[in-house]
């Protein structure tokens, strides 16, 4: 399955890129993060949230072909 991942802030810096499109066997954001954190030296997922197609979703949400996935570090606006 092909998905797009966008990286922001500290994750963008760790991953060394703003986004990537990849083929994955992960069926949930949890599995996808596990796969990427090994490949891209991302920090542990604790404290992150996840969005799929620009909506907050839980870590066991079923991913579908073409989804856009964003892992969200603790926010710090204001």
């Amino acid at each position, binding site marked *: 399955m092909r998905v797009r991942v*966008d990286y*922001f*802030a*500290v994750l*963008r*810096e760790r991953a060394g890129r703003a986004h990537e499109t990849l083929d994955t066997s992960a069926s949930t954001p949890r599995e996808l993060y596990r796969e990427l954190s090994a490949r891209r030296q991302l*920090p*542990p997922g*604790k*404290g*992150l949230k996840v*969005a799929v197609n*620009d*909506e*907050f979703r839980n870590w066991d949400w079923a991913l579908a072909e073409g989804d856009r996935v*964003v892992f*969200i*570090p*603790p*926010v*710090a*606006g*204001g």
Partner: protein
Amino acid sequence: MSDFRISRRAIDPAAELGALEDAGSGAVVSFCGRVRNHNEGRAVTRLEYECYEALAVTEGARVIAEARESFGASRVRCVHRTGDLAIGEAAVWVGAAAAHRSAAFEAARYVIDQVKKRVPIWKREHYPEGPAEWINAAPSEAS
């Protein structure tokens, strides 16, 4: 124009306030968060804000709607900067208009508290010496 906006240009508080005008609203409260020259005892030279805009605008609009409904405010608006900001520049502005002052104060306070908690915006502080740091990003501070 939406009542929650992300802006790469300087915030104009007078223009934002003007958009809250309403003859029925006796009370208008505004909050402006500006870049400070220090944070937790350390000198700060400038800030960078980064935003996941597609989600920030929908989550921000939800916060505004909640504030309006929860407190009976007639109008509520918020704008958040992104990009490079100098000391003293406005990073975020919130305005709330209501018939009575309690509703206006509470709605404005709710919006800034929730925006800081829920809207995907990140800031990186720059210091006189040493590398810039993403604020809040340390695992120990993760929510």
